[in-house]
Structures are given as structure tokens and as C-alpha cells.
């Protein structure tokens, strides 16, 4: 973050207030906080990188105009996701109408995707931010272990991170506790999570991420 005097822990509502007040660095902070989220929405809908950049620019330009009249400023993420989804569909519809473009994934996107998956995006954002705040060794270890659906190879992870294999289990558990604490402290596990939790509690095997027994356990 370049020369920003804005508190990086500021809530979205505070950040929006500071942007409206033209506080130096506030807009830059907001862009850094949300650029990847906004860019990911059209990308996930199958738009090309350059189209996704156009959508992102359009969304942030709209935000500049809409910010002052925004009633629930704490719902900034929801606003951005909704507008990015709408703008992305405009591009998709334009492409379909003009019959242009090579046969790409866009052609197969179901209409149900028109409604943005707010809970899903917010969950991704919350976990990403929490991992960022976790930082360092913990972030590295959790990503190495859990960023794929397959069972992690503890031996490989130990070698890659230069850790004794016997210390991975305890370190992992400590890092997971810290991650949950960060999520809880930032409200990242409230609201949209509740429904999902209920569903998972009722499910047989949980998340479908199959994990073997960790060595030594």
C-alpha cells in the first residue's frame, strides 16, 4: 500500500466514509481491498481477462458515483458483487446477441448464475482476508495443506516448508485455531455462514474433502 494513511483494519463503512471525505489514501485502500473480488466475478462467469478488466473499471466508476447515496455502507462487498455480476451479464448478453465470439464457456453458463452467489463470494473474501491477516508460516502451511481438494501429502509439505513432519500436526491445529479466531473477530463466520453450517452439520461426510490420516495421528 503506497503512502496510505488509512487504517487497513477500517471497516467497509468507515472506508466508504473516508472515501467520501476524500481522505488521502482511502480510495486506494478500497481498491486494494476489493479489486480482486470484483475482477473474479466476471472471470468466474467465463469472461476473458480484458473483458473482466473492463467490467471491473465500470464497477468502480459506478461506485464513485453511488458511494455517497449508499445506505448500508457496511454492505459494500454485496453491492460490488451484485453490480459486477450485472455488468458481466450485460457483456455476456451483448456477446450472445451479436453472435460473436468463439465457442467459449460463456455459452454454457446457466441462467441461474444471473443471481449473484453473495454468500459464496463473501465466504471466499472472508477466508482470503483471514489468511492474509494470519500471514507468515501459518498462512503458508494452511495453503499448502488445504488449497487442493485432494489429500495433502504431509511428507512433501514438510520437505517444501522445511519442517519436521512431526511438527506439522500441532502447528496446523494452532494455525487453524488462529484462523477461526480471526474469522470470528471480524464477523466473517456470521450471517451467511449459518445456513451452510446447518447444512454441513446435517451432512454425512461433511465437505467432501477426503483426508487421510495424518502421519503420527
Amino acid at each position: 500500500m503506497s503512502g496510505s494513511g488509512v487504517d487497513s483494519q477500517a471497516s467497509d463503512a468507515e472506508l466508504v466514509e473516508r472515501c467520501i471525505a476524500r481522505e488521502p489514501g482511502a480510495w486506494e485502500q478500497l481498491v486494494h481491498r476489493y479489486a480482486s473480488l470484483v475482477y473474479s466475478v466476471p472471470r468466474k462467469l467465463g469472461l476473458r481477462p480484458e473483458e473482466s478488466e473492463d467490467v471491473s473499471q465500470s464497477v468502480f466508476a459506478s461506485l464513485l458515483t453511488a458511494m455517497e447515496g449508499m445506505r448500508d455502507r457496511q454492505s459494500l462487498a454485496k453491492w460490488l458483487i451484485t453490480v459486477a455480476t450485472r455488468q458481466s451479464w450485460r457483456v455476456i448478453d451483448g456477446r450472445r446477441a451479436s453472435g460473436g465470439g468463439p465457442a467459449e464457456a460463456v455459452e454454457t453458463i446457466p441462467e441461474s448464475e444471473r443471481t449473484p452467489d453473495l454468500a459464496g463470494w463473501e465466504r471466499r473474501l472472508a477466508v482470503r482476508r483471514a489468511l492474509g491477516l494470519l500471514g507468515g508460516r501459518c498462512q503458508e502451511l494452511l495453503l499448502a495443506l488445504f488449497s487442493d481438494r485432494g489429500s495433502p501429502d504431509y511428507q512433501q509439505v514438510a520437505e517444501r516448508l522445511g519442517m519436521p513432519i512431526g511438527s506439522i500436526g500441532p502447528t496446523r491445529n494452532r494455525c487453524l485455531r488462529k484462523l477461526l479466531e480471526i474469522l470470528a473477530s471480524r464477523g466473517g463466520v456470521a450471517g451467511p455462514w449459518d445456513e451452510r453450517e446447518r447444512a454441513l452439520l446435517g451432512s454425512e461426510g461433511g465437505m467432501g474433502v477426503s483426508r487421510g490420516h495424518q502421519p503420527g495421528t
Partner: protein
Amino acid sequence: MSEENRPNDDVIALALGEVRAEDRARLEGGLRAQDAAIVARLRAVLETMAEPGLEAAPASLVRRLVSLDRRARRAEAVERFGAELRRFIASVVFDSRVNPALAGFRGGTEGRQVAYSSEGGGVHLRVSGPDERDDRMALRGAIEWAGGVSDSGGGGWVRLTGRGVDLSIDLDDDGMFATRLEPGAYQIVVALGDVEIDLGVLDVA
């Protein structure tokens, strides 16, 4: 998270599916409500980590997004102190669609060429069709400004609005820009220092 809500190793093992089948029912049966919630929460967190996450926005895009604020400030200044800023309406002095025979004299015949003139400078645009890499129209432009674009106060850009998009594209130091657009009509405004040149609406098709 209070101490009693911190998941113990059994709770974490349960969430990770690292408990033997014969122990699982016993462990699950003995879970306190808050532990059961933590198991579910942890599974949801791990599932989120395992799915494709957010895609990092390219650095060039982030720079452009950051500069939007500067542009908005400028637009506000235009509104407030309009008299200090100059806005010119450019007129078309050449359009190869209207007069294709002359296109050859204008440095090439590829695509449509449009030239504008306004007080202080001129703008040349070239519209060409899709190619094998991109199925959208290509729009390139060059701004000729008395004294040079780099002397205009810096931060020149072109704003294109139409087809539900509102794009700003930075001019390079030579006053040139290039972008891709879906076919359609776009309002084009060039901003240079304290000057705006309104090119009107161009049919990019």
C-alpha cells in the same frame, strides 16, 4: 473466541476427517453444541480454501482503478470551477466511411479512420474489426496537442461510454491509446490537463 470455544485436537481431527470410523460416532455423540458448530465452521472454511478462490487483479488494472478517483475529482472540479476548465466540441474533418477514396492518403486502408479537429489539437481514430486473438472491435487513437500531450498537465485519458460500459483509458506519453470494444455506439471524450475534447458519438462497428 473464548477459551472454551477454542477447538481441541479432537474437534479439529473430526473436522478434517482424520478420525477412525469406529471412533467417529462416539466423538460426534459427545460433542457440545458449540464444538459441533465449530466442526461445521471449520469444514466450511476448509472447503472454501479448497475451491478456486479469488483471482488476483492484474497490477495494471489496480493502477487504473486507483486513478479513477483522480478523474472523479477532476470531474468535480470541472463542475465547480467550470470557467477555469475548457471544453471543446471537436468536429469531424475526415471519415473514411464517408469518403473511402481518400483513405489511402491517410496512411493505410485497414479499417475505418476518423479524424477530428478542435481548438488546440486534433484526434485521429482507427476502428478495425476482430482478429484471431479477439472477436471485439479494435479502437486505436492518437491525440495531437499543441505543445505535446506530455506538456498538457499529465494524466490524459479517453473516456468511452456506451453499451452499458463506462471506460477510461490512459493515454501514453505519445498521446496514443488502444482498446477493444463490443460493436456499438460510444460517446468519446478526451481529457488533457484542464481541457476536454468532446468527439461526440462514434459508431464502432
